[in-house]
Structure formats: structure tokens, C-alpha cells
């Protein structure tokens, strides 16, 4: 079969969505380092989309720049997706391991990231009348990524089409559950922290008094 470099594999996967991920699987290729780089780039793309979009197109509230929502929308969502997918597919006879899911999912995101970067770049030279081009670029990238993601999940777990679809929808539900539990946990811990802190202040006052 094929022989590629690490980046060559990425290129192969993106431009051959049907067989690319299968090859990746059977050749046991795909780099964790590259996939982490892609996740970081996803975050950078999000920030660029908010901050560097052409003035006429940018509807974001520019007075405050808060990095946390962007971080959640990119990095946190990605890892939640990986964990949720792994949890669901382990139960559904999926063959993918956590590392493979992570690598494949990240590889599938590349068209979307490229699309966002191209759109952000182009929006600085286009006017509102030409916004359709930006939309076209954006949705092309998004659609391509969705297609890749589907193929990635299909290949990594060796599923049929229907089972892949079902597992992906279930993964989204699982994502919601996980995020809900995380928020619950955070608020509980916050209360515990407040409780301990108030005991500490109480004791410190008494010692002083």
C-alpha cells in the first residue's frame, strides 16, 4: 500500500475521505502530536474568527474579550467528544481505542479549521455584498469536516453506516451528560470550598479574638 510521511498521511486522509481513514487504521499511522496541534489550531481559528474577522462582518461584542468561552467551545468540546465517543462505542462493540479516536477526530477537523482561516483572511478584503463567498468557504469547510468525521468514526470502530450515525448521535447525548455532570461537580466543589473557607475564617477570628 502507501508510504507517507506524518504530514503526508494527514493530506492523504483529508483528500481521500472514503479510504483514507481505513488506510490510516490498517497502517497504524497517525500522530498524537499532530492531532494535538490541530486542536490548538482549532482554538486559534476560533479566536481569529472573533477578533480578526473583517470589521463589516464582525458582530461580536468587541468591548470585552473573554477567552474562556472560546476555549470551552474548541478544546473542551473536542475532548468531551473524544471521551463521549469512546464511552459509547466501547459499549457498542466499537474497535477504536481512545488514542485512535482522538487522532481520527482531530484529523477530520482540518478542513473546518482551514475554512475558518481562509474566511477570516478573505473577510478583510470583501464587502458585505460579497458575503456569500465567505459563507460558501465556511460551509464547504464545515461540510467536508462533517463528512470526514463520519468516515473517521466509521473506520476507527469498523461500523456500518447506520451504526456510525447512531453512535455519533449517542455520543452527542453523552457529551451533554458529561458536561452537565462536570458543571454539577464544579458547583458542588465550589460550595465545599466556600464551606471550608468560612470555617477557616471563623476559626481565625476566634483565635485572634
Amino acid at each position: 500500500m502507501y508510504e507517507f510521511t506524518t504530514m503526508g498521511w494527514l493530506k492523504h486522509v483529508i483528500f481521500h475521505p472514503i479510504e483514507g481513514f481505513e488506510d490510516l487504521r490498517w497502517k497504524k499511522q497517525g500522530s498524537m502530536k499532530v492531532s494535538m496541534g490541530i486542536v490548538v489550531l482549532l482554538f486559534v481559528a476560533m479566536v481569529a474568527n472573533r477578533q480578526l474577522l473583517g470589521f463589516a462582518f464582525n458582530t461580536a461584542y468587541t468591548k470585552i474579550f473573554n477567552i474562556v468561552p472560546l476555549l470551552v467551545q474548541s478544546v473542551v468540546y473536542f475532548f468531551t467528544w473524544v471521551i463521549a465517543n469512546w464511552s459509547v462505542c466501547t459499549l457498542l462493540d466499537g474497535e477504536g481505542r481512545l488514542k485512535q479516536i482522538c487522532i481520527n477526530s482531530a484529523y477530520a477537523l482540518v478542513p473546518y479549521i482551514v475554512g475558518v482561516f481562509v474566511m477570516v483572511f478573505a473577510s478583510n478584503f470583501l464587502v458585505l455584498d460579497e458575503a456569500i463567498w465567505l459563507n460558501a468557504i465556511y460551509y464547504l469547510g464545515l461540510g467536508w469536516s462533517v463528512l470526514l468525521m463520519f468516515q473517521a468514526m466509521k473506520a476507527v470502530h469498523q461500523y456500518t453506516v447506520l451504526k456510525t450515525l447512531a453512535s455519533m448521535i449517542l455520543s452527542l447525548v453523552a457529551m451533554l451528560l458529561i458536561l452537565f455532570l462536570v458543571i454539577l461537580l464544579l458547583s458542588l466543589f465550589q460550595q465545599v470550598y466556600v464551606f471550608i473557607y468560612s470555617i477557616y475564617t471563623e476559626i481565625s477570628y476566634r483565635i485572634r479574638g
Partner: protein
Amino acid sequence: MKSMQMRKAFRRAAVLGISLVCACSAMASTAFAAEPYDSYCYDYWDDAIPAQAGYKVYNTYTGYDMNLERLTDPEDELYISESAPIDLNGAKDIFYEDVKNEFWVADTKNSRILRLDKDLQLIGCYSAIDGVPSGVANFNEPQGVFVTVEENGDIMMYIGDTQNSRIVQCKVTSMNTCECVLEIGMPDTPIYKSKTFLPEKILVDGAKNIYAVCTSVNSGSAQFNSLGEFQGFYGANRVEVTAEIIRRRIWRVFASDEQLKSMQSAAPVEYKNFDIDAEGFIYTVTEASNVTTDAVKKLNAAGYNIWNNDAGNTYIFGDAGANTYDAATNTSYTTRLTDIDIDSDGFINILDYATGRVFVYDEECTLVTIFGTYNTNSDQKGSFTGPNALETANNNVYIVDGIKNDITVYTTTLYGEYLKAAVLLYDEGKYLEAKPYWEEVIARDGTCAFALLGLGKAALKEGEYKLAMDYFKDAYARRSYDKAFKYYREQWLQDNFYLVFIVIVLIFILAIVLSILKKKGIIKKHVRKEKKQVERKKTKKELEHEAELAAEAAQAESEAEEADE
């Protein structure tokens, strides 16, 4: 230690001395009166930002300042009785009549109409009408007054005589007498469904049709022709779409006839007040709190809201947000727009009863300035407790307070004058003529978004596209920015056409040359690099594997040898 303490003490004394000097000089220089209100404006995001004050208090007139004691002086020609009240009491309306330059005030709780000259000095008082068909001569808490001057010079008063349930039109015959021309009682038609007829505000259009806003009538204002015949209702508000309304709408589909009968029907909120502009358009305001649908309308002759188009839904009046928090007084309030007035330049002035603020909009409904405040503990000139009505005349704004019982006159500051002059020119499309005024405005308030927009449009007209873009960016006018950028891009492409052309041609040539070179095999760089990397990888990863293989092979060989032996 001691020296350090001394040094500290010395420093303290020095600081004290300096601050004392500062305080003294401040006392000497702060002999000016600041406006009693916090001036602010709303930006693109509907965030309140500080702004320069557009209006300042000119004066406040109580009954004493208006010479109302003339009514109790037997020697005076305006004498009514010794016990006549010499103060306003719960005045509900003020009207400026521009032919004779006079003000008319509905002094509601005193059941009389006051006539004041342009300096708010008393020149007439009317508490009864002669020749009334129904025989009820005295006014009973009139809440609305409207005055016209006929072509023959007769002064015609239209009064919403609220507690007498009638509208009267009367001709002024002297300083304190008037003669009834028309008396309109409760309309006797099935269309008028309300059980009461309490006309509050009166308005007369060019065709002498009389409009009356009546208490708790929500189908619009009652409209009468010049003969006093009921014509129907005019310009009702729409029902605001809330979750409750939607729920009822859905229920209606499933409900039986009997259930339908017992169901509450959705009723719109009635509008509180109105005004007519020079072109005959009628503007209405709705006071009820939390209402955003039809809060302010501009009605044509058919009663159709001409702001009610696709773009019209974005018009916002009053303070942004349904419930607004005021940090200065630590209270939250709901805007209650109680009166509206269109001045001679077309500016829309809206009075907020809850906060005592007047919002000034231009004819395109863009916020120009905000002034006035609610009366807090410090009873200050220019603050209001019960602001009931406002009127504009000669660039001043007159506000009637029904609890403090006075009339406050606000006049424009220099900033306000420049701002209004600039806005007028801007709305006419004279961007270049407006430019010097905008520059004066921006010199006084650098964050005034309207001024930045105006300067941007002027720059755009002058062909300074880059400058226009900067202005629009600061004003956050995205559409205008886009327009300026379009021109800028066009200009740039024209100026740098050859550069662009050459770059494109160069890229083409380079691409062609590269492909030819690749075909001929002169360039193999890319392929070679890939191979190299693959090789390197092999050495790294598969060395062990190869070694293993070699070992296995060796073992197999030795085994074979053993077998041979």
C-alpha cells in the same frame, strides 16, 4: 526611629498643606452650577456611556413666578376671587400656541385653564364657559388642552374636561371668559363600547377633526369631525406578543365554544398621549410599563404606523432594557413614556415619568441626547417628582411637574446647539455643510457616535475613504464602514493596477515554469525529501525489527544447520 517618625509627621503635614491649598483653589474656581442630571447616551451596543449635557436648566416657574396672585387681587383685571389658588395643582398638560406665542396650561386639580405669555407670565385664566348646552359651566379637572388660532384671529380652545365627561370647544372672548362653540359628550353609538367617557388629551388636526385619548379605552383615540360627530377610533396599539398570548392562542385551537366564551381576550395597551407635527402626522406614546410593542408610533391619516415596517421593529425609545438599574440611586425602574412632543425642527422629545428624563430623537429616531432626572433627596432645580407633560417652544423644553407644581424650562447648551444644528443638516443629507458643526461637537465630546458617523459621511463625500473608514469604525457603523471600504478598495485597485497585474502575471509564469521543470525531471526536490524522511523513519523505527528479523533468520539458519547435521 525617631527621625523616621519625624519625617513621617513632616510628610503628613506637607500633604495636609497641599490638599488645603488645593481645596481653597477649588472653592475659588468651582463657582459654576453643574447640570442636576447625569448626562449619558447609548452606544451601538445599547450600553449607557457618559456624554456631554445637551440641555441645561434655564429656570423654574412656580405659581409665584407666574404672578398667579393677580387672581386674588381685587384691583387687578384678572381678579377672580380672594380665595383663588395662587399655585398650580396637579397640572396635567401644557400647550404652546405658536401664532400668538402663548402657553396654555391645564391646571387640573384647580379645575381651570391658565393662559401664559412666552415668559410664562399670567395673562388669562378660564374656569367656566358661557353658553354651554348642557348647563354645566364650570370645568371639572380638565386634563388636556389644545388651542388653535382661526384665520380671523379668534382663539379656539379645545378642552378635555375629564371629570365632566365631555370635550368642549370654546372661543376665547376675554382674559377670563370664553364662549362655548361645541360640546361633545359620550358617543351614542354601539361602536363606542366603554362605559365611561373620560377624555384626557385633546388634539386637533388640520381638517379640524378632534382626537381624544380617553381613560381605559384601548381601541385608540376617539375621533370626532368638526361638527362633533363620532367618527370611530384612531390608531390602536397592537397586542404585544408574550408567552401568555401565545399560550392562549394555542389553547384557542382546542377549546370548545363555551370555553372560548369564558376566555379572556387579548387587549392591547392604550396609548397615553399624542402630538401632531407640522406635516399632520400624529405621534403617540404608550405609558404602560414593560411594553415595547408600539411604545412610540408615527401615524398617518389612516391611523397606520409608518414606522411599522420591516425596519421599524428596531426602533427603541426610552432607556434600553425593560427593567433598568440606576447605579446613582441604587434603584431599578421601568421606563414609562408619558408625553411626546415634536418641535418645530422635527426633533422628537419624549418624557419618561419614571425617571424624569427627556429623550430627544431626530426624525429618523436616532437618539440625540438625554436630559432631566428624577427628584432625589436634594430638591434641585431641573429634577422632577411628577413630570406630567412637556412642550417645546423656541428651542426650549417646558416640563410641567404635577407634584412639585411648577414648570421647568430647559434650554440647550452650546454643545446641544451644535449637536442639533449638525443633526438637522445631517438628516437633510447635507453632510459637508454639517461637518463644521460635527467638529464642534466632537471637540466637546469625543465619544459622540452620532458625530463620528456624521464626520465619516462627510469624509466619504469628500473622497477621503480611509478617513471615513476610521470614523465609521469608531462609531461602530458597520454598514457605512462597508460602503467606505468598497470605495477604498476600488481606489486602491485603480491606483495599484499595474502592481496587481504584474504580480498575477508573475505567479502564472512561475507556475508554468515549475510545471515544465517538474515534467522534465529537473526538479525532484519534493519527492526526494519525502523519500529521505521515509528512510529516516525506517532507520528509527524498524531497525530493531530488522535486527529481529536478521536474528530470526540467523536462528533459522542455525536450526537448519542443526537439522542437517
